[in-house]
């Protein structure tokens, strides 16, 4: 209860639900379409019983028709509504690529800025648990590649709530990507203060001097955990949560690397043409090489689809240990931080 503000403890999943409640209560033009919205297990605890409170006309569970549902939401958004489409897994959303990439993303520009699809497309990243290649993908980088689409990836319960609200209130099409691996994460949240999405960007979430760790979504959480653990090994890591992947703002990263001289980007997707490479490229374009104490590194998935076998899954996903080892190597290799060796 700091500074007289009422704080409420929620987890990431229920924080998303709070955003839905906030929006549905206040904005009559908001409605939701997606699969599993009347079931309990599709989207974790993030939408529990919304159909009971707001009715099935506003919380529309749908046929297995990702393309038409997404396209319909884009269309309704052109007629004054603020629809949210929910795809319980990003993988299913690939059927909706035309509605997202050819239509929603292009609309404003194509019609001379005279119409804007204010649609929010929620894609859930859900992986592990031996679900295999078609139920595990994190394809945020694809969408961040597309001008006209805003892409957000919340890493904390507060962002899960507030960025969803900002996405829906934004006049542009927004891809809101939440991560099932964060749903249990808890935080005390202050009351909602609406904030335009246009003003949201990357953020330093913990200070440090030896190395800059960058991530988004679950990877940002991993970076924070790694920074805390690295402290015990006398390595001081600065952590940056990207939060918004498109338009991408790396000014915080550049400032940080100017100070630390070392950059490690973590991304829970593949390397090639990916988010980590993009961050490194932008830093390299801006910073003089003389400012760098070592070559930037990225930690990503191996270049393979997600395996099913639990044995291979363990090798597949980057962990806290992967980050710790990589960072320790980066810091120690450059010889600056001898005290890091214990």
């Amino acid at each position, binding site marked *: 209860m700091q500074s007289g503000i009422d704080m409420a403890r929620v987890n990431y999943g229920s924080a998303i639900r709070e955003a839905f409640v906030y929006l549905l209560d206040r904005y009559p033009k908001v409605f939701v379409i997606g699969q599993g919205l009347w079931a309990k297990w599709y989207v974790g605890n993030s939408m529990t019983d919304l159909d009971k409170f707001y009715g099935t006309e506003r919380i529309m569970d749908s046929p297995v*028709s990702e393309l*038409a549902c997404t396209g319909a939401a884009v269309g309704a958004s052109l007629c004054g509504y603020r629809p949210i489409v929910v795809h319980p897994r990003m993988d*299913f959303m690939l*059927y909706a690529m035309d509605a997202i990439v050819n239509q929603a993303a292009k609309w404003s520009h194509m019609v001379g800025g005279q119409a804007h699809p204010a649609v929010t497309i929620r894609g859930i990243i859900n992986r592990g648990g031996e679900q295999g290649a078609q139920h595990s993908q994190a394809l945020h980088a694809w969408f961040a590649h597309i001008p006209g689409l805003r892409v957000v990836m919340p890493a904390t319960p507060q962002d899960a709530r507030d960025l969803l609200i900002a996405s829906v209130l934004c006049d542009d099409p927004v891809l809101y990507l939440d991560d099932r691996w964060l749903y249990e994460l808890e935080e005390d949240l202050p009351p909602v203060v609406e904030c335009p999405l246009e003003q949201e960007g990357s953020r330093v979430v913990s200070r440090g001097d030896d190395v800059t760790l960058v991530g988004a979504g679950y990877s940002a959480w991993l970076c924070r955990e790694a920074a805390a653990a690295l402290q015990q090994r006398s390595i001081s890591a600065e952590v940056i949560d990207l939060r918004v992947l498109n338009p991408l703002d790396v000014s915080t990263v550049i400032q940080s690397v100017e100070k630390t001289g070392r950059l490690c980007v973590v991304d829970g997707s593949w390397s090639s043409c990916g988010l980590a490479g993009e961050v490194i490229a932008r830093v390299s374009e801006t910073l003089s090489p003389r400012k760098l104490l070592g070559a930037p590194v990225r930690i990503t998935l191996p270049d393979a689809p997600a395996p099913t076998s639990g044995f291979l899954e363990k090798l597949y996903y980057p962990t806290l240990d992967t980050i710790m080892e990589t960072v320790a190597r980066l810091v120690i290799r450059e010889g600056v931080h001898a005290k890091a060796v214990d």
Partner: protein
Amino acid sequence: MDMDSFELGDLANPRCYTEPLDIGGCDPVLLRAQLRMMLLIRRVEEKIGDMLAAQKIPTPCHLGIGQEAIAVGVSEYLRPTDRVFGAHRSHAHFLALGGEVTALMAEILGRDAGCSRGMGGSMHLWGGSVGFFGSVPIVAGTVPLAVGAALAAKKDGESAVAVVYLGDGAAEEGSIHESLNLAAVWKLPVLFVCENNLFSSHMHISLRQPSNRVARYAEAHCIQAATVDGNDLVVVSRTSDDMVAAMRDGGGPRFLEVVTYRWRGHVGYREDNDVGVNRSTDLTLWKRRDPIRRLVDALTMAGGWDNHAFHAMDEAVKTEVEKAWQQAETAPYPPASALLDRVYAERH
């Protein structure tokens, strides 16, 4: 417009079609072999269900208990050179073609001896040697692929056919409708087998489609279709035999809608995991349309078959299933190198 033809009518009413099958004119030896296959599929899936309950299987499994007659009936007249595709609920599709029980179990456990070499689990099965070209969990994902397999067969001038199993939910994906049109306009030898179990996960078909007979979509694309009791092995076998024969003769695509019901929840071992939908009354009724029991009753009535014979068969099947499970459980995992080695074709 005749709206009646858009509806399943009694086929969707579990109080109907519960009597013993009409096996007149059937070969009893073949019927017993088919009964054994249905029983094998059921016991395999029950075993998988038990192992899911015991938390020995981490991968998601979609059980088709109650739907066994379909795969067994459809597979009867297929050849290893045909091309069969499945979806997320495909254990039966794989086994009915002669896929090995151990290979299925090992796959579900993520072992190298699995039918997809441990890389796929329950939802991604492969069985090239028996003509099983693959199953995937992206709903409707394999439907256009089967159309392509039929196109290849036609280009080759072979009499091979493609078969794809899809659900009533899959019929809601746009690619189904494109696929039906392509198959029709190019006269491709593909059999669409729509297992209409009235549900797509937690949602009854009445909440998803304006009428419940899926074959209407095929008819709209000028594809010859039939809608039959999917829990009647004899009817499923005969209808698919006729359809496959016509396709081999260059008759173009066919659409077989088989009405059935799954006894377990959408995913996992429980009967009641379809949260938000109370299926329990219906389920009790649908269990009376048990495809296995109806065949057993018919065989018993016809004579030369009794409870004793059934139990002997069942015991043998159960022993086979246990043995397969034990073999699978002790099989090694894929090597770590499999992660990268199996992404692209090997260069020889």
